[in-house]
Structures are given as C-alpha cells and as structure tokens.
C-alpha cells in the first residue's frame, strides 16, 4: 500500500465527486527539510500531494485564517492525529461546520524538527534528506549523516499518543487508536522534579530569549483571535516589549488561552526563531487538563471544550482547605 498514491487517489475522487471544492494537503517544498502546504482545486494538482516526515504543518490553521476564509466552501483536509484534533476543536468552536469539511486521515510516524536536524549537522546546511523508516539520512556539502528517526522528530511527536486522526471521514491506511507512549509525561515529570528555584532559573533563561515576534501564536491553530490580547490596547493587557515579565506573562496567558485547546502539534516550538522550549508549558497545561478534567483537546467531537465545562465534584486540591 502506498500512502501517497492512495492519498492522491482519495483527493481526486473527492474532487471528481464534487464532495469538495478544495483540498488542503502538502507538497514537496523548496528546501529538503520542509514540505509546503498545497491547495488543490483540480484533479491534476492532486498528483503533487505528498505525505512524509517533512509534513509538519497543521493545515487546520487555514480554516480560521482571514476570519473563516473557507466558510462557504466544502473543504477536504489531510490530517495527522494532532491536526485532526485541531479540526475537531475548530468544529466545537464554531469555526468549521462539520458538514463542510471532509477529514482525511493519514498515518503519522512523526514529523521532523528542522532545528534538531541542524543541531545534528552542527549547523551545516542540509541539501538532501532520505527517510529510511527507523533512520533518516541527510546529505550536505561534504558530509552524509544517518541517525535514528527519534533523534530528529519534533518533541511534540515524541510524546504523542494519538498519531492518527480519531475523527475522520476517510483514512488512508489503517488508523491507530490511542498508542501507549512512555515518554508522554517524561519531560514534565523531570522538570517537576527540579526545585522551585531551578525551575524558575530555567523559565527565566528560556523566556528571556523571547523577541516577541509572536510566531508561536501566529502558527498556532488554536490562536485565531482577530486581535490577540497582547495586541489590544484599550485597555492594554500587557506590555509588548521584550521585557521579561511581559514576555513570560504573555506566554503563560497564551498557555491558559490554549488550555484544553492545545493539541500539542508542536507548531509553536518549531516556529520559534529563538528556539524556546514552548512545548513544555503547553504540555504541562494539557496534562493538568487531562488529569483534572479528563479532557484531551479535540478528541471528542461530541464533548465540550474543557474550559467551558465543569463537574461539581472536581478535584480542588489547590483551594485552601
């Protein structure tokens, strides 16, 4: 079975049957480490569609772009597990009409993090990449390197338990349900084991790097406010300079704004030009949401988003006795 050819076939059929006006997928990019989003409106374009380790983009972001740009269109979309959860969340949040979207799942084995690859090459440019399954080979000017797939996967993928869509209309291949992952909480637990001052030192170091470019926010499929709170100035919620407290508060509030909504796709971390470990806090929040409320963002299309729901007998250990 060939995923890519099956995917192309599926897209063509959808277009041919007029089930969709548009399909959003990926195609090979101009650089070896990045695929690029592809908007397919005709069957012949479907042959450009690919799916591989470089297809990191969470395409659901295009639904909310320009204030629901596809509101009147029937749109098909290729999704990995995390992307599917974004689509579901967008449906729950009335950004997408379930009727108007055809969700096509593709089996995901993780996407690469360019920065991790470049760390492996000591910053040397990569000119070619081959995915061998368990290993990945990269070739550049004067070098060829192979390494374990896990070494260059996005951190988000390393802790993933839903690699495949749980809500879909079609699936290319065999979808997997929840996949056990012993690393799911590893990073969180390790960080929690540090002392308060060690944790603070790390936070300080990480978030002092922030240049407030908002790439994290802008690539986030859950951040689709018309005007982000940080950009509002009547009243001004928070300072926009690179002053540290403003930066950390911006990030903490953003973490809370995506609480119960973050699908841990890792787009923010991959987009961060300063390489801040943004996922750590997002994951912590996602874990608290799971642990306390039993919710995983975008998993249950019949559910309610966690932060607008409640149970009377919820754990309230943080309230003074």
């Amino acid at each position, binding site marked *: 079975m060939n995923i890519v050819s099956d995917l192309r076939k599926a897209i063509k059929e959808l277009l041919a049957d007029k089930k969709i006006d548009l399909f959003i997928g990926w195609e090979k990019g101009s650089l070896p480490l990045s695929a690029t989003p592809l908007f397919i409106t005709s069957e012949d374009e479907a042959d450009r569609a690919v799916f591989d380790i470089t297809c990191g983009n969470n395409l659901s972001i295009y639904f909310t*772009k320009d204030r629901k740009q596809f509101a009147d269109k029937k749109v098909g979309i290729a999704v990995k597990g995390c992307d599917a959860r974004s689509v579901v969340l967008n449906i729950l949040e009335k950004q997408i009409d379930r009727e108007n979207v055809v969700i096509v799942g593709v089996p995901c084995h993780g996407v690469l993090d360019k920065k991790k690859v470049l760390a492996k090459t000591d910053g040397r440019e990569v000119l070619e990449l081959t995915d061998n399954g368990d290993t990945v080979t990269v070739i550049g000017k004067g070098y060829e390197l192979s390494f374990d797939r896990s070494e260059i996967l996005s951190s988000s993928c390393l802790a993933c338990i839903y690699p495949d869509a749980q809500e879909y209309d079609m699936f290319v291949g065999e979808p997997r349900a929840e996949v056990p992952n012993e690393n799911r909480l590893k990073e969180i637990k390790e960080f929690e084991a540090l002392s308060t001052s060690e944790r603070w030192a790390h936070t300080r170091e990480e978030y002092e790097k922030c240049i407030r470019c908002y790439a994290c926010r802008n690539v986030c499929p859950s951040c689709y406010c018309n005007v982000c709170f940080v950009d509002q100035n009547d009243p001004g919620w928070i300072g926009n300079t690179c002053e540290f407290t403003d930066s950390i508060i911006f990030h903490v509030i953003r973490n809370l704004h995506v609480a119960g909504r973050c699908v841990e796709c890792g787009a923010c971390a991959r987009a961060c030009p300063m390489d801040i470990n943004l996922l750590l806090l997002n994951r912590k929040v996602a874990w608290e949401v799971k642990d306390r409320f039993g919710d995983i963002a975008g998993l249950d299309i019949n559910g309610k988003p966690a932060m607008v729901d409640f149970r009377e007998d919820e754990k309230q250990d943080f309230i003074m006795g």
Partner: protein
Amino acid sequence: MNMVRLDKQKFDDFIRELSAEYSVYAPGKVGGKTEFIPVEPGDETDFTSPVTDMSPKGIFFPPAEVLFEYDEDGVRAAETSHRPIAVWGMRSCDARSLVMLDRVFGSAIQMPDDERFQDPYWKEKYDSSLIFGFACNEPLSTCFCNWFGGGPHNRGGMDVFVVDAGNVYLMEPVSDKGIEIIGKLSCLTDAAEEDEALAAKLASDAESMMTASPDTDGLGERLTALYDEPIWEEISAKCVNCGACTFSCPTCHCFDVQDEGRGKKGKRVRIWDSCMFPIFTMEASGHNPRVLSRERVRQRVMHKYSYYPENYEEVLCTGCGRCVMVCPVNLDIREVLKKIIAYNEQVI
C-alpha cells in the same frame, strides 16, 4: 590600500585592541541560536553558517528600544552607553542591509541634512560604528544576494572587508574609517601577494556557487502593474502571517511605539512591528486597510521590491535567505519573485 593579515592566533589580541575603543559584537551562540552578541577577548565566535539566525540589524535597531522615560520630575532621554560599536563577522548581505536601513533612519532623501528627519537613536549607534564585513566563501543554497546587485564578496556597507583564508584573516579597508582603524591596530601585518590571489580565487569560487538570477530588471514597475491582480491570493494562500520573515529579515524596519507606564512613571518604547500582523495598519478609528492576509503579503513584497526602490533605486532585500529558512510553511520568496516575473510576462 592593500590587504593586511591577521593571524587567527592573534584574534584575541585583535579583539582586545578593538575593545579599547569599541563595544565589539560578533556572531555567537545564545541558547542554540546564532546572533550578534557583545564579545570579549577569549569569547567563542560562531561562523558555522554564513547566515546568523538573527540578523545584525538588532545591534542598531533593537527589538525594543527605550526612547525616553518620564516620572513626576519630567521627561528624560533613555540612558545609553555612548560607546561606539564595532561589528566583526558581518556578511556581505547584512552589511548591505545597514546601508539600506541608514537611508531610512539616517536621513530623509529629500532633505538629507534636516535633523528632524534623522533618527537620533539609529544615528548615534550607526554613524560611529565600524563594520568588519565578512566574505562568504561557501554561500548556502538559500542565498540569492546576486539577484539584487550583491555577491558573496561584495564590499558594500563595510568599513573593512575580511576574508577567511584558512589560518589567517585577510583584511581590506573599504572606508576611511576602515583605513584609520587598520592603521591603528598593531596585531596586523601586511598581506602577501598570494594572499590577495587566494582572496580573489575564493571570491570567484563563491560567485560560481550562486544560483542564476532571474531577470529582475524593472521589478518595481512590474509589481506596480500587478497590484490589483488575483495572483496575490495564490501567493499568500499558504502564508500564516507568522511574521518570522520580517523578524529575521535584516532590512525590515517597521516599528511600533508603545507607552509603558504605571501611575506617574513610565517610558516610551519602540518595538519591532511586522506587516504580517493583522493589526499592522489598524487605525485608531478601527478601520484597517489591510484586513486580509493577501493584502499584507502584497504589502511586504511591494515594500521591498517596489516602494523602496522607487525612493532609493535599490530593492530592500539583500538576498540573505533568512526568510526562506525560517518560514514555517516554506513560502519561499524566490519562488514568489519568480512567480511574479512569470505572471507579469504572461499578463503584460
């Protein structure tokens, strides 16, 4: 003036001598990313990639710069160090970018001497600065400096041109300031003829590594003609307006001014802005002439390749390729330009 050479073993001495008068910046690693940071003798520098992750524009035009402070006693200028800045290791593309920025901040073209149109914050730093530019011996696949009049060994915007020649750095003063400083530094020796030959070879080798440029003649006018064409929709379709391109770009220079205050104390700060952001041109009335992504993408492209050249006869792009590298959706500006050129030919 001829080239001089700096033995790499004497690099610390060089920095030490330079530091006597200048705050010295050089590429270094901060949290895994390369950017221009203040260095001291003995500090490690990082030249792994010809293109630092962050461009050097932040040295002269910081992401957040305090313009003035106020309290109950009145308004005061922000405190600065007033030490001149020397930058070591700035590639051709980046050195050229400073010239482009200086056209904007340094003066107004119509009234170059009118102080009202000069940005004192920029001028104070840039006018007294010393740029040790760095030749690119091994340009990257993403480099396209040759498209717009640059090149890996271009000397534009530099005070001293430096070639990495193995064990030595070969230096060639470019400006008066460069001549002066070369004359002052004691750790330098005169270069030999073979050194100059090597430099020339490295230059031609580097040139040959560059990809061919499309026909960029009259790009500005061509763009103007395309202003209302539907092509912008196609170009911008995948853009998520993250702004990574503008933040990493050495020539993007849009800024916003914010007041930070509490009670009777506060300051006014200039911060980088980005035309990619939805509120970029939001007006106080609430009206926004560039609501849609494609309008903002068009703005960025037009500004760089049409509006700026209209004023300064040079595009506002040095071809450093950073935006190509950082774009999370691989929206490659080179492809965009090629597309525009092709479309233009097809339409007109």
